[in-house]
């Protein structure tokens, strides 16, 4: 039992244990709960720093627990997991700070924060899963851990959203389970391997592999909100803002997208998948989703709903990147895991700030809000411009690599999709930016909870979006600096292509 064995488990338990303890706390034990939460996240960040250092120096971290003969629960850390783990923990930390500010007087806080930690643990498990079985288990735990968060408000609307969420994800999970079992029967232990574990099993028939691919991607596509499996996502935005932020940026939606990346690269292997002709349908689905999500977003007046449809569109960039055979496109897709996370979490934080401070839920109520909440709206503007793909914000970098990568592999239609998506993004974000900064408020704010003082809102609500917006700017501006997500992604892609 050395550090290389323990580290993945330590990382998992640094969010799992605080979560479990928090369940038993009283709602009023704010200080203890906050300390536990932040200490857990802090320790986790430190551990991950160690992990990054190790993985960069070719250390191997693997914890293998024998579940049943021939079935191992494996947690390990390769470059791809490190990327996702860092994103999850970093944003968990920020979201926790935000949630503490946001949930200040809300009921059932212990339940909320407990499940919040479990949700992150499951995400970390997904990130570090070393084989498909472990991935599946964490994936299902994530479903169950998020349900109480979605339905946290207990209103009929929230309960309805929760049911829809559960239906979709359980059915998706079932498909994924069947796919996994089938593949296990054909190929034996399903340890993720760079360049693909199926490379060693060339004897499996094409039909089998295609159906299994469909099952796996179908199951993952529910969480990744690929059209037509996206129906739950716009409903789930009734959840409290921190949950939406985490759901859209890291936990659920990202878990699905991450799974797609894993299946394409580490199960099938990108070259093998290309040969089997499985990538083209996935690319088509992603392309349709990108356009469809953007068009639907145009019609939403509810801010969070517009953001939700925007997520549907943006997360499919990741699937699109995975579905194009070529290192540049892969870089664009994988790096968008991080970039989209940073931008989208900022947007949801800001939406939460508007709701919590002024009671604004609709875009039509946002006229002139830039004067009342300049910092929040500055962060919002930055993230929205990034989503459109304006440099130097993160979204531009992903788009550039996706575009150039698609051209390299001769898929020039992708450029049209990207262009259309840029136009649509501009069409649904720029009017918001315009009305907040360049129009005068017409009516008093719907429900001003927090009066304007020296700061426009509670500092715990203000700091997180500013931080994530700066990060979104930073990872774009310093895209080529050492240890930036882009450079790390290049490192991942080198391994996945066996270069």
């Amino acid at each position: 039992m050395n550090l290389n064995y323990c580290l993945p488990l330590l990382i998992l338990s640094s969010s799992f244990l605080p979560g479990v303890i928090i369940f038993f706390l009283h709602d009023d034990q704010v200080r203890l709960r906050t300390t536990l939460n932040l200490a857990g996240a802090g320790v986790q960040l430190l551990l991950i720093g160690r992990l990054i250092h190790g993985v960069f120096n070719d250390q191997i971290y693997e914890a293998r627990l024998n579940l049943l003969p021939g079935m191992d629960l494996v947690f390990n850390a390769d470059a791809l997991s490190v990327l996702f783990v860092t994103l999850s923990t970093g944003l968990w930390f920020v979201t926790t700070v935000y949630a503490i500010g946001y949930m200040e007087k809300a009921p059932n806080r212990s339940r909320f924060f407990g499940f919040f930690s479990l949700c992150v643990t499951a995400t970390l498990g997904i990130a570090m899963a070393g084989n498909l079985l472990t991935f599946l288990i964490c994936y299902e735990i994530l479903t169950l851990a998020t349900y109480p968060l979605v339905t946290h408000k207990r209103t009929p609307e929230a309960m309805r959203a929760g049911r829809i969420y559960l239906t979709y994800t359980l059915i998706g999970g079932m498909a994924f389970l069947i796919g996994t079992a089938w593949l296990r029967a054909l190929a034996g232990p399903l340890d993720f391997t760079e360049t693909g574990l199926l490379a060693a099993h060339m004897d499996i028939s094409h039909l089998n592999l295609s159906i299994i691919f469909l099952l796996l991607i179908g199951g993952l596509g529910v969480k990744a909100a690929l059209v037509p499996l996206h129906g739950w996502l716009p409903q789930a935005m009734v959840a409290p803002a921190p949950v939406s932020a985490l759901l859209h940026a890291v936990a659920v939606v990202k878990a699905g997208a991450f799974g797609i990346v894993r299946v394409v690269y580490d199960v099938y292997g990108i070259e093998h998948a290309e040969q089997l002709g499985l990538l083209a349908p996935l690319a088509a689905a992603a392309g349709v989703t990108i356009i469809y999500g953007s068009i639907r977003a145009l019609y939403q007046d509810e801010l969070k709903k517009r953001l939700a449809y925007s997520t549907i569109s943006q997360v499919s960039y990741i699937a699109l990147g995975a579905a194009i055979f070529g290192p540049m496109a892969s870089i664009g897709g994988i790096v968008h895991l991080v970039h989209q996370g940073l931008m989208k979490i900022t947007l949801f934080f800001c939406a939460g700030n508007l709701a919590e401070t002024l009671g604004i839920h609709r875009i039509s109520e946002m006229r002139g809000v830039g004067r009342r909440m300049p910092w929040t709206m500055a962060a919002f503007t930055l993230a929205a411009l990034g989503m459109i793909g304006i440099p130097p914000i993160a979204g531009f970098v992903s788009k550039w690599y996706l575009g150039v990568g698609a051209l390299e592999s001769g898929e020039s239609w992708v450029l049209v999709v990207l262009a259309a998506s840029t136009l649509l993004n501009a069409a649904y974000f720029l009017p918001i930016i315009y009305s907040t900064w360049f129009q005068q408020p017409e009516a008093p704010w719907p429900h001003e909870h927090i009066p304007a003082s020296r700061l426009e809102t509670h500092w715990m609500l203000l700091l997180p979006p500013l931080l994530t917006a700066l990060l979104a700017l930073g990872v774009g501006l310093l895209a080529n600096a050492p240890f930036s997500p882009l450079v790390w992604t290049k490192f991942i892609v080198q391994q996945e292509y066996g270069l």
Partner: protein
Amino acid sequence: MMLIKALLLLTPTLPLLFAVAYPFARARRIIPRLATIAALPALLLALLPQNPIALDLPWLLLGTRLELDSTGQVFLGFTAFLWLIATAYTPGYFRSQPEQQRQPRFFLWLLLTMAGNLGLIVAQDAASFFLFFALMSFAAYGLVVHNGDAQSRYAGRIYLTWVVIGEVLLFCGLSLCFFPADSLYLTDLTGVSSPEVATVLLVLAFAIKAGVLLLHVWLPLAHGVAPAPASAVLSGAMLKAGLLGWLRFLPLGEVAMTTWGWLFVTTGLIATFYGAVVGLLQCKPKPLLAYSSVSQMGLLTLLVGAGMLAPEQWPLLSQVILLFALHHALAKGALFLGIPLVENSRGTAKKRLIGAITLPALALAGAPFSSGMLAKVGIKATLPLWSDSVQWLIMLLTLSSLATSLLMLRLLQLLYRSEPHGSPINPATTTLWLFSLIVMALTTWLWPGSTPFRSHALSADALLSASFPLLLALALGWGAVRWGITDRWSVAPGDILWIYRHLISRIVQLWHFIERLLVQAHTTLTSALQLLIGQSPHRHTWPGRWESYLQRWETGSITFVILIVLLFWLLLFF
């Protein structure tokens, strides 16, 4: 060496740094003073003797390289000078304006736009060029809508629409242009053959910025409503960014592009006359000047087209392009800055200022000894190099000089009749403007690049042919005033914009039609399904039924049991 690198870095970052001061109330008070010095490093860099030193920042963006080449030096020179004058001019201008328009916010947009405009000139890689181009274009929106009335908001909307279209075209064009190169540095682009569609996209993207015919509709609107200092840099410096884009990304001087060349030459010639004619039909000085820009950019388009037709003549042609760009930038900037000075003054002061503003107007018309004449001599000198029908072209150019001269007369007429809408601008600002006139008059002649044309421009022959259109214009103008036909017709700024609006509204109609069809199909389908499963379509919707089925506790538990069974099955078998 170190100095050059520092200046390269400061050129785009100093305005950006000052812009960062804006959110802080205490720093906001000195932001007008900061803005004035923000363009200084760029101007200094442009004036220093040129040596090829690149500043490489591989960690920045996708690998950034800043460098000033000889083309960039001219562009940076006039751009930085215009920005310097425009920012120094702004406080005095604001004092003469109504209270609600004197907002420090203007300086924020000014600084951001400046950073983009200066940065794109020194950028030597695709990503940072795109960054600065986008920064300039989007930040200028704040300048366009500054007045805050309905008219400027409308102009802003049109402007932004075209900016977004331009950005998308540019993104696609750049990625198509650079993907075979495997590097983002502009220097690595030579010799790389990009697909033809990349050329189409890049030409269009920059044509929007340069106000090429048919893509110019945003320009008269935006330049007409922006405050005068903003119009000066929009027209003088930022239009040239489109030109610079062409020079940077098209393989000019490398390969002959005959079709493109003729397209550019023809469009340019038509734009020259079209801009002048529509400009004559304007009733306000600023839109008139904007149309004059469309007309003058037409001549630059023609020159770029000439370069496509005769790549071997590119060294000389590019000199003429630079000469013309330099002349037009300075003259147009001086004209825009002069308008509020004249408009807001009264009595003899007004007459004197009209006298002063005649100077850049004459330059634009190509009067003898002016910078415009030098530039036109340059254009004429290139004609035999790329065209067989020189006589025709000379005639057309003379006609275009006539048109511009008429346009300038019309400007003076409008200015003469104008009513003041603010208090007179203070003497210091007026002096600053007069100083810029001197710089304008001399720079083009002193610029080393103009040497080949200087002696010819001072020959009696050239002076005569330059005076001819001017005198004819004076006669025609006198006649027009005499018979009172100057205000008989007018065209709203944006001329053919209504065509686009009409097209778009048709597309929107079509979309609504498709939408209705889809909704109808969906309702029909759901009702049919409900009838099939024996439910009246209106009592329960199909999703609702599915929903209520899922709500039941049993469904959940059954699903759970199935899951558990499946898991066990899994465990047992493997």
